[in-house]
Structure formats: structure tokens, C-alpha cells
């Protein structure tokens, strides 16, 4: 009986250990790919049309989901914000609330989460399938580096697209908040815009939001690329990698958001 419990305990420890080692190994392999991507970037910048093409696929094609979500998030913020603020008689501050919530937090974070679901999965599946159908090997055998030709353009496309998408998210979200607060509820339009203008700080709010979205862009795109590049070349392998992209990216975004926010608030 005792030995049975002991065996189960040892097995449990072993499993935890194996998972830890696997996690550390994957982190190392991911960092290695990140480094190789950075040093191959010069080569891919020379053919910048490849990056532009990927900006279209990852950025432009994500626009609809990002903008529609932003509109609804902004409208909900308007409703919730007004509901709470009116209790304190400061419903004119609704513009500030909507703008700060979007620019500082929701814009970068929700955009990154949607990006991981829309563009990240597409990147992982595409690269995973390219690997499974030997397209990456074929490129290697043609003396063309798949990291410079396939990975680096997608990486830079993600890094370029994310802040732009986050900015558009915040903009459309504010518009949604405005539509609910001003025409629907009847808050004064002048108060809505002027309070927002007075309270939103260029550096502490907007610039910090941009920094967040760039960091999320690097994290989400790199995770998607690594999962695709590392996927076992089978249908099951690609499907698992796609799932892992969403889970890892979402956790990374939320974790990084906490770290970045604590740094930004302490400065």
C-alpha cells in the first residue's frame, strides 16, 4: 500500500519534472528562433514586398473582426461607464473613462487576443503545413533560408500590424462609446470630447499603449511562428500547435500586460 503511494508520488514528480524540462526546452528553442529571425531580418528587409504582403494577410484581413469588436467594446464601456458615473453626478467624465480604458488597456490587450485568434492561428497552421508538405525543406535544399524567406517577413508584419490595429481599435471603440453616450443617452458632446482631450496624456497613456501593443505584437507573432515551425509534421501536430498558439499567446499577453502596467505605473 505504502509503496503504491510512493510510486504514484514519484510518477507525479516525474511528470512535473518532465513538463518543466519540456517548457524550458521550448522557451530556449523559441528564443533561438527569435534570435535567428532577428539576424535574418536584414535579408528579408531587402525584399520588403514580402513583409508588405504579410501585413496584408495578418493586418488588413484582421481588420473586420478588430473593428467590429472595438465598436461593441466601446459601446458597452459607454453604457457601463455612464451607469456608474451618473451615481456620482459625473456623467460628463464618460469620455475620459472610455478613452483611458481603451488606450491604456483594452485597445492593446483585446487587439492582441483577437490577433492571436485570427492571425496567429493562421500563421501557425500555414507554417506547420508548409513543414508537413516539405515546402520548408525544399526551400532549404534550394539554398534559401526559410527563416529569412518565411519567418522573418511574418514576424515584422505582425510587429508592424499590431500597433496600427490597436490604434484603430481604440479609435473605433471611442467612437462606439461616443455613439452610446452622446446621441443615445444625451451626454453633452462638448464635455465628452473636451474632458477626454484634457485628461488623456500623450506620454503616459497613448505612448504606453503603443509600447504595450508593440510588445504584444512581438510576443503573439513569435509564439505563432515558433509553434508552426516546431509543429510535428502531421495533421494532429498542426492542430495541437494551432491550439497552443491561442492558449500561449493569450496567457503571454495577459502576463506581459501585468508586468508592463506595473512598470509603467511606477515610473
Amino acid at each position: 500500500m505504502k509503496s503504491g503511494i510512493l510510486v504514484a508520488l514519484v510518477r507525479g514528480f516525474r511528470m512535473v519534472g518532465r513538463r518543466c524540462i519540456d517548457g524550458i526546452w521550448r522557451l530556449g528553442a523559441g528564443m533561438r528562433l527569435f534570435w535567428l529571425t532577428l539576424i535574418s531580418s536584414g535579408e528579408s528587409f531587402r525584399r520588403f514586398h514580402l513583409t508588405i504582403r504579410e501585413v496584408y494577410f495578418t493586418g488588413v484581413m484582421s481588420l473586420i473582426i478588430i473593428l467590429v469588436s472595438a465598436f461593441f467594446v466601446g459601446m458597452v464601456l459607454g453604457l457601463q461607464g455612464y451607469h456608474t458615473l451618473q451615481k456620482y453626478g459625473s456623467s460628463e467624465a464618460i469620455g475620459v473613462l472610455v478613452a483611458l480604458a481603451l488606450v491604456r488597456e483594452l485597445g492593446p490587450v483585446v487587439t492582441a487576443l483577437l490577433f492571436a485568434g485570427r492571425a496567429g492561428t493562421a500563421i501557425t497552421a500555414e507554417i506547420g503545413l508548409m513543414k508537413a508538405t516539405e515546402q520548408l525543406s525544399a526551400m532549404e535544399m534550394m539554398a534559401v533560408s526559410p527563416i529569412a524567406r518565411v519567418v522573418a517577413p511574418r514576424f515584422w508584419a505582425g510587429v508592424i500590424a499590431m500597433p496600427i490595429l490597436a490604434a484603430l481599435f481604440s479609435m473605433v471603440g471611442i467612437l462606439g462609446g461616443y455613439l452610446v453616450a452622446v446621441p443615445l443617452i444625451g451626454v453633452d458632446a462638448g464635455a465628452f470630447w473636451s474632458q477626454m482631450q484634457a485628461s488623456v496624456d500623450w506620454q503616459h497613456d497613448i505612448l504606453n499603449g503603443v509600447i504595450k501593443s508593440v510588445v504584444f505584437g512581438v510576443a503573439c507573432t513569435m509564439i505563432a511562428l515558433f509553434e508552426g515551425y516546431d509543429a510535428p509534421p502531421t495533421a494532429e501536430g498542426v492542430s495541437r500547435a494551432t491550439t497552443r498558439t491561442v492558449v500561449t499567446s493569450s496567457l503571454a499577453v495577459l502576463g506581459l500586460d501585468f508586468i508592463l502596467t506595473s512598470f509603467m505605473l511606477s515610473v
Partner: protein
Amino acid sequence: MNSNIVEIDNLSFGYKGRMLHQGINMVFPRGKVVAIMGGSGSGKTTLLRLIGGQIKPSKGEVRVDGQVVHKQDREGIYKLRRKMGMLFQHGALFTDLSVFENVAFPMREHTDLPESMIRDLVLMKLNAVGLRGAYKLMPTELSGGMARRVAIARAIALDPNIIMYDEPFAGLDPISMGVVCDLIRTLNDALGATSIIVTHDVEETFRFADYIYFVANGVVAAEGTPEELRNSNLPFVHQFVFGEKDGPVPFHYAAGDYASEMLGSDL
């Protein structure tokens, strides 16, 4: 100049504790069509990957044009690969590029030729494989045999010295098979190249290969011209050439005693 363009010297390779090759010696004379034959899982494709420098041998060496492949740095390997063309088992065409762009890919990557010359060269290569009329099609619109031919056109895009074919006949109908057979021989002779074919199709290979190596159990089990091998008394060669079900290569995978396994309940 060495008369052999590729030399494999006492090569051993294995992974995860299992040795796939144990002391293989092969030579590939310039201008010849040489086939490597053997059962599925005998490490034939791995030999091509070792020649291309995609993996490193555990022992021994592969020399291409007198240079030891695994001792080259990345630049050196890429330089060697520019002398090689490779046809992958399922073509490995880039699915996001048209037939024209697939064939143009190595030219665009490795030369600064003007667009008009690339156009002419691509059409010439496609004409050589009989698919000039299909230049606009996407890879998904091609049949298996056509995809294989486009991949051959891409493999010969830069007039390589060595053309490697990985299972060029797998899954083809008899007509496509005949076409691919003729192409391999014609292109080899027209380009003055050396062809290395990995296959297990006896009839087709014996028709046009100059020399054949049989790989089994990690070693070269037999070698010779098609005529010599057809008349060989070696049991393995006989079983393979005449497709006998049982022989030195057993029908059954290694297993325990049949009767006791059926009567017992454990697996």
C-alpha cells in the same frame, strides 16, 4: 577533376539510439543515373538528406564535388546546394505561388537576371517537362503527375550538377510514371548532370538506371547494373526484384509466440 561527383564513405547515421545506417559506401559517377533502392523505412530518403547536408552523419562522411558536406558552415552548405536540385516525394511546390513563380523561385533568389530572361528560362524549363501551357495554374489545380513534373522543372531551374529524386514514382498512374521516367533520363543526359534516385519501384528503375544500390539493414546489401542485379542469386535481391512476400525480409513484424498470445489476455 574527380570522376565521382558524390562519394559516401563509411557513413553511419542514427537517432534516438537506433542506427539507421552502419558503414555505407557509395559512389555516384558524373553523368550517370544511379538509383538507391530498398524497402520502406530503410533510410533511403535520409541518405538524400545527408547528401544535401540537412542532417549530419554520426560517423563517416559524404563528399560532394570533393568537399565534405558536414564540415561546411552554413554559407558553404548553401554554396554546395546551389549545385543540387531536389525533387521531393510529393513535389513540395509552394502552394501560395503559381506554377510559373514556383519555377522562377530559385532564379529570383539566386540570380539578378532581368524579368524578361526569367520569363524565357521558366517557359523553357516548363516546356522541357511538357507543362508550358500550365504556367498560370496554381499547385492545387495540378494532378499528382503534373505537380511532380513542375517540381522537376523547379529542381532543374538553375541547371544543377546533381539532381536528387525522392520517390519520383510514388502514387503516379502508369502514363505519368512513364513520362517521369523518360524525363529523368532525358534531363540527366541533356544537362550532363548526375541523377540520384531513391525509389522502390523495380520495373521503372531497372529500365533506365545505370547503376543500382540496394540498402537493407543499414548497409549496402547489393549493388550493380540492372542486368547484374536481375541475375543476382542473393536472396534479398531476389525477393525484392521479384516482389516475393516472404524471404529474408519477413512478412511478420517481430512478435511473440502467436498461440500463447492468442490464449493469454495480456498485450
